[in-house]
C-alpha cells in the first residue's frame, strides 16, 4: 500500500519528521518499507499559469503557450492535448532535470531551450511521467486551482509517499483513515473526524433483493442521477497516481479514492443498462459471465453474483460486468457499498485466479459499519466531481447488525504474557486510544472493540494491542524461570552428527540437495539391477508427486540420494581435481495417499585424485578400495558390530553392505554405461546405504578390552596362488590355522607379473603372534606361521615363497 503523507495530514496532525513517523509505525507492526520524496528533484520547476494559447503555423498538433510563473512569463511549444488557458501547470525552466518520457529505461535529462518549427521554446510544461509521478504522459499534469503561481512545484505538490507492507490481520488499517487511527493511538494525537453529509436525498428509495446473509452481511445501493463523466479534479488524480492507482474518469476515480481513504471497495453500475431491481444471488451452475476486462469466465459454484431482472451485471466483491460498466455516456448510476462474505470471495477469486484490490480487501473481512460511511463519502465526492444528484435514501440490507462482544482482560494476563508490569491506567489508556470501549472492574478490564476491529476476540489479542502500542523496547530480556524441563538427548541426531563428522574427517564433503527431482533425473538408474537393498530407481507411480511443482525439474520427491549427489559430482569435476561427496538425508517412500515414509539414507560418490596432487607423492586415482575403506571405517566407528562387506556375485567391482544379515546397500565402481548417460568421463565409485539400518545397529559405547603388555612376534608369509582366489579365502585359512596366539594379520603387498607365471599372484601377509600372559619365543611364532602355511597349501593349493619348510 502506498500512502501520500499529505493525504494522512487531512486526518491527523503530524509534527514529527517522516522518518520518525515511519519508525513509530514500523515498531507498532505497520512496517514502512519505503519512503519516497516526490519533490526532491524538482529544482527549477515552478507552478505556472497558462495565460495564452496560440496555434503554431503548419503544425496541427502543436500550440504555443505563454505561461506566467510569477516573476515573468515565457513561451513554450507543446503538443499536450489537454492544455487550456487558465490552467495551473508544472513549468520546467532551462536546467531542470526531468524524467525522459521517451526513453525505454528510466533515465533523466537536463532541459535545454530549443527551437521547434522555428519557434523558440524556453521551457516545458510537464507530464506526470516527466516529474516522476507516475506513468501518465498523454497530456500535461494539471495542478489544483489553489496552487500559488510562481511557487516552486515542490511546495505545491511535493510530498512523501509511504509504502507499507501490512500484515494480514491489520486489514482495518489498510486505508488513510485506518492509518490515521493507528497513528493517533501511537502518538497520542487525536485524529480529525470528517463530517460527511447524511444519505437522505428526496426521491424514491432504491429497492433490491439479497438472497441471504450467507452472501453479504450488508448491502447498500445508492442511486445518483445527472452525472457528467469527465476527468476528476487534479488533486484526486494526483493522489490516486501517488497511491499507484491510474486515474480513469470521475466516477471510477471517486470509487477508488473513497476506497483508499476509508478501505471500503465500492462499485458503480450504469443504471440505464439495468432492468428492474438489483438482486444479489449465488451463481447458477454453468453460469458464464463477461467481466469488464472483456474476459468471459465460467463462474465457480457459490460465487456472489449481482444481477438485475434479466441477467448478471457483476461479480460481487471481485469485478464488475462489461454489460453495466460506467462509460463516457453514463448519466445515472447505482453505487454499491457492501460487506460480502469473505470466504465466498476468497474461494471464487482463487478458483478464477482473479484477485483484485476489492477481492483482497473483502477476503480479509470488512466492517459492515463502514459500508454506509464510505458510501456517503463517495456520494459527497460525486456531487463535487460529477455534478451528481443523489436520489432517495439508499437501499440498506443489514439483517443482523454486528454486535461486538466484550472481552475480559484480567490485569495479571498482561504480565503473564508480556513479562512486564503495565499499570492498569496505561492499559486502559492504550485501549481507549485505539477506540476500544473500556470498563474497569476490580482486577480486570471489560473491553469492547470497535466494529472495525473484528480481529480482536481474545484477551491475548488485547495484550498484543497493549504491547505493540507501548512498544516492546521496555520488555526486559530474562531467561525462562521455573523448573527446568527435562532435556532429552536425541540419540539419532547424535549418531547422524557423528557420522557426518567422521566422513568429513575422512576427507568427504557434504552436499545438500533439493528433495524434489525430475523423472528424467532418475531414468539412468532404471537399468540397474534391483537388489534387496535400498532402491535407487522407482517407477513413476510409486513416487510422491507434487501437484503444483515450480518446474518439471522439481516435481517428485526423491526416492534415493545418489542421482543428486552424482549430479553434484559431475558439475564439480569440471573444476576440481578431486571430488569426494556425501549426503545424509531423507528420501520419500509413498504410502498410498497418506503421508509418505521419510527414511534417511547415506550416499557417497568419489572420483578424481585420491589426494591433492603434490610434488612429493605420485598422483593416485580414487578407486573402489578408497570407498570400501570409508564404508568400513565409518561402520566400525559407529560400532556397528554386525556388518560385513561382501563381494556381489552379480556385479563386478561391487560390494554388498550387510548389517545383521540384511542388505543395507552397496558400494560399487559405477558402470561405464551409467556414467556415460550421466555425462561423466572419469571412473566413479559410489555407495548408497540405508541409514535407518545403520542407526538401528550402531552401539553407543564400546567396552574397554585389556591389551597384552608382552611383545609380539612378527613373521611374514608370502603366498603364491591363483589369481581367482580371493583374499578373503586366504584370510579365512589364516584365521583358522593361526592358533590361539595369532593376534592379527595385515596384507602388505599384492603382486602380479614377472617372474610370476600368468594367472598367478603373490600375497604378502604380515602375521602377529602375541600372548596375554608371557613373552612368546620366536620359535612359537614360527610354529604358528608354519601351521598357516600348511593350511594354505592344503586348503587352497597355494605355494609358499621362500618357505623354510618343505
Amino acid at each position: 500500500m502506498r500512502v501520500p503523507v499529505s493525504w494522512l495530514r487531512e486526518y491527523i496532525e503530524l509534527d514529527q519528521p517522516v522518518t520518525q513517523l515511519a519508525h513509530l509505525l514500523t515498531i507498532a507492526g505497520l512496517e514502512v518499507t519505503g519512503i519516497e520524496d516526490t519533490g526532491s528533484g524538482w529544482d527549477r520547476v515552478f507552478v505556472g499559469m497558462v495565460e495564452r494559447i496560440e496555434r503554431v503555423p503548419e503544425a496541427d498538433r502543436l500550440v504555443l503557450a505563454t505561461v506566467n510563473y510569477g516573476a515573468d512569463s515565457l513561451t513554450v511549444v507543446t503538443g499536450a492535448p489537454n492544455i487550456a488557458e487558465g490552467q495551473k501547470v508544472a513549468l520546467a525552466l532551462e536546467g531542470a532535470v526531468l524524467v525522459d518520457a521517451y526513453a525505454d529505461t528510466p533515465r533523466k535529462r537536463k532541459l535545454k531551450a530549443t527551437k521547434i518549427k522555428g519557434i523558440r521554446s524556453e521551457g516545458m510544461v510537464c507530464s506526470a511521467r516527466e516529474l516522476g509521478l507516475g506513468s501518465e504522459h498523454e497530456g500535461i499534469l494539471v495542478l489544483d486551482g489553489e496552487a500559488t503561481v510562481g511557487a516552486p512545484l515542490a511546495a505545491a505538490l511535493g510530498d512523501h509517499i509511504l509504502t507499507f507492507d501490512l500484515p494480514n490481520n491489520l486489514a482495518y488499517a489498510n486505508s488513510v483513515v485506518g492509518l490515521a487511527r493507528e497513528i493517533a493511538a501511537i502518538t497520542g494525537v487525536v485524529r480529525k473526524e470528517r463530517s460527511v453529509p447524511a444519505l437522505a436525498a428526496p426521491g424514491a428509495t432504491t429497492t433490491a433483493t439479497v438472497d441471504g446473509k450467507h452472501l453479504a452481511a450488508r448491502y447498500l445501493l445508492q442511486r445518483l442521477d445527472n452525472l457528467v463523466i469527465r476527468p476528476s479534479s487534479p488533486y484526486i488524480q494526483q493522489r490516486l497516481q501517488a497511491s499507484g492507482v491510474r486515474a480513469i474518469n470521475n466516477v471510477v476515480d471517486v470509487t477508488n479514492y473513497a476506497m483508499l481513504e476509508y478501505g471500503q471497495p465500492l462499485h458503480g453500475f450504469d443504471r440505464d443498462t439495468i432492468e428492474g431491481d438489483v438482486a444479489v444471488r449465488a451463481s447458477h451452475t454453468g453460469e458464464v459471465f463477461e467481466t469488464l476486462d472483456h474476459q468471459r469466465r465460467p463462474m465457480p459454484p457459490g460465487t456472489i453474483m449481482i444481477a438485475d431482472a434479466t441477467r448478471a451485471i457483476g461479480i460481487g466483491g471481485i469485478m464488475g460486468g462489461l454489460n453495466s460498466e460506467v462509460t463516457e455516456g453514463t448519466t445515472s448510476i447505482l453505487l454499491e457499498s457492501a460487506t460480502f462474505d469473505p470466504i465466498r470471495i476468497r474461494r471464487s477469486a482463487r478458483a478464477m485466479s482473479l484477485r483484485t484490490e476489492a477481492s483482497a480487501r473483502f477476503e480479509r473481512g470488512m466492517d459492515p459499519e463502514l459500508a454506509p460511511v464510505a458510501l456517503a463519502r463517495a456520494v459527497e465526492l460525486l456531487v463535487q466531481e460529477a455534478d451528481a444528484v443523489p436520489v432517495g435514501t439508499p437501499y440498506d440490507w443489514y439483517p443482523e447488525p454486528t454486535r461486538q462482544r466484550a472481552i475480559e482482560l484480567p490485569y495479571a494476563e498482561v504480565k503473564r504474557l508480556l513479562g512486564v508490569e503495565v499499570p492498569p491506567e496505561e492499559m486502559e489508556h492504550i485501549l481507549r486510544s485505539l477506540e476500544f470501549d473500556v470498563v474497569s472492574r476490580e482486577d480486570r478490564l471489560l473491553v469492547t472493540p470497535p466494529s472495525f476491529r473484528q480481529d480482536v476476540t481474545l484477551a491475548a489479542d488485547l495484550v498484543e494491542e497493549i504491547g505493540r502500542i507501548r512498544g516492546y523496547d521496555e520488555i526486559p530480556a530474562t531467561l525462562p524461570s521455573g523448573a527446568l524441563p527435562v532435556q532429552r538427548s536425541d540419540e539419532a541426531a547424535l549418531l547422524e552428527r557423528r557420522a557426518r563428522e567422521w566422513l568429513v574427517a575422512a576427507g568427504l564433503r557434504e552436499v545438500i540437495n533439493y528433495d524434489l527431482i525430475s523423472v528424467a533425473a532418475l531414468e539412468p538408474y532404471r537399468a540397474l539391477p534391483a537388489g534387496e537393498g535400498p532402491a535407487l530407481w522407482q517407477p513413476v507411480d510409486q513416487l510422491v508427486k507434487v501437484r503444483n511443482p515450480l518446474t518439471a525439474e522439481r516435481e517428485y520427491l526423491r526416492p534415493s540420494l545418489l542421482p543428486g549427489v552424482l549430479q553434484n559430482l559431475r558439475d564439480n569435476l569440471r573444476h576440481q581435481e578431486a571430488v569426494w561427496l556425501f549426503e545424509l538425508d531423507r528420501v520419500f517412500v509413498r504410502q498410498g495417499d497418506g503421508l509418505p515414509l521419510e527414511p534417511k539414507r547415506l550416499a557417497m560418490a568419489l572420483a578424481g585424485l585420491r589426494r591433492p596432487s603434490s610434488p612429493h607423492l605420485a598422483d593416485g586415482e580414487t578407486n573402489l578400495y578408497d570407498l570400501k575403506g570409508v564404508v568400513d571405517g565409518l561402520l566400525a566407528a559407529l560400532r556397528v558390530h554386525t556388518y560385513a562387506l561382501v563381494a556381489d556375485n552379480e556385479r563386478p567391482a561391487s560390494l554388498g553392505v550387510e548389517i545383521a544379515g540384511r542388505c543395507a546397500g552397496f558400494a560399487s565402481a559405477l558402470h561405464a554405461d551409467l556414467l556415460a548417460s550421466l555425462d561423466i568421463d572419469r571412473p566413479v565409485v559410489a555407495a548408497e546405504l540405508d541409514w535407518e539400518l545403520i542407526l538401528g545397529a550402531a552401539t553407543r559405547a564400546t567396552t574397554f578390552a585389556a591389551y597384552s603388555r608382552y611383545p609380539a612376534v612378527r613373521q611374514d608369509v608370502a603366498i603364491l596362488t591363483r589369481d581367482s582366489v580371493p583374499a578373503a579365502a586366504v584370510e579365512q585359512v589364516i584365521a583358522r590355522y593361526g592358533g590361539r596366539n595369532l593376534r592379527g594379520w595385515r596384507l602388505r603387498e599384492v603382486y602380479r607379473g614377472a617372474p610370476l607365471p600368468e594367472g598367478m599372484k603373490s600375497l604378502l601377509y604380515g602375521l602377529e603372534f602375541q600372548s596375554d600372559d608371557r613373552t612368546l619365543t620366536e620359535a612359537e611364532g614360527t610354529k604358528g606361521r608354519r601351521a598357516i602355511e600348511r593350511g594354505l597349501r592344503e586348503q587352497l593349493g597355494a605355494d609358499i615363497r621362500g618357505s623354510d619348510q618343505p
Partner: protein
Amino acid sequence: MSLPEQILAIQSAALEQVTTVGSVRDLEDWRVRYLGRKGELAGAISQLGAVSSDERRAAGQAANGAKAALQEAHSAKLAELKVSAKQDNALDVTLPGIAPVVGGLHLTRHTLYEIIRIFTGMGFTVFETNEVESDEYNFGLLNLPPDHPARDMWDTMYVSDDVVLRTHTSPGQIRAMRQFNPEPLRVILPGKCHRYEAVDASHESMFYQVEGLAVGEGITLASLKGVFEAFAQQMFGSDRKVRFRGSYFPFTEPSVEIDITCNCLGAGCAVCKGTGWLEVSGGGMVHPTVVRNGGYDPDIVSGFAFGMGVERNAMLRHGIDDIRHFYANDLRFLKQFA
C-alpha cells in the same frame, strides 16, 4: 709389527679415513670402529699385558696419543659436519607441505549445528518431524483453518488436497506438544521447508528453518527476548542487541518480528539498508488455540515460539549475497566455509 707401531698405524688409518666421512652417521660408525669399546684402539690396548715393559710403556704413550688425536679429530669433524648440515640446500623447505585430505560440512549444516549447539546449551532438545505434512498440522491446528486469508502468507506446494510439503517447521510445535504434554517443554525443531516461490537471490523454494518452542508456566515475551538475545550474542557477537517489532502470525499472539543490530552496530550500512537492524526471526507467544491444540491449558501455561531461516543466518554471518549458492553444491562455494 710392534704394538706401538700397530697403534700408530691405527691412528694414521683412522685419521686418513675421517677425512672422507660425510655425515654424522658415518662419523658415528667411524667412532665405533676406532674409539668404541670394542674398537680397534681398544683391541690394541688390550694387548698391553702381553708385551715387555719397555714396549708397554711406549705402547701406552702411543695409545694415549692416538686416543687424544682421534678424539680431537672426532670433535673437529663433528663440528664441521654440523656447520655443513646447516648449509645443506638439498631440502628445499619452501616446497609445499603434503596437504592432508580434509572434507567439510555443508554450510547450512555447519550453521544449523552452531544454532543447535547454542540452544541445547540453554536446555532445548532437538526434535525432528516429517517434511511432508498434513494440511491439518501445517495449517489447521496452527489456527489457520481452511479459507483463512492468512494462508496466503505461505505459497504452498501440495501433494494432494490434504497433504503438503511443510511450508514451515511450525507443525512440529503441535507434534512436540502432543508428545510431551503436560510436561514443560523446550524444543528446537530444525528442518527443510518448501515454498511455491519463484527463486531469486533472496528466495529459495527449499530452505532450512529452525523453530524454537518453550511451553510451561511463567513463559513470557520477556523470556523470548532473553533466550533470543543469548542466542544472537553467541551467534553474531556479544555486542548485539535484540529488538521486537509488532507483527502478525496466526499461531502467535502477541506476534513480533525479531531484529538484531546489524554488523555495522547501528551505524547504517548496505546490509541493513541504513536502518542499523536486521530482521532475523519472527515469533511471539503461542496462540491460546495452538496451546490448546497441543494439549495444554492456555489459561495456566503459556509458551513462546520463534522461527528463523538457517540460510539467512549464514548469509548474514558470511556476507553471502545470493541464496542460490547454497544448494548448487559447488565446491568453490562450500570449501570456503569448512
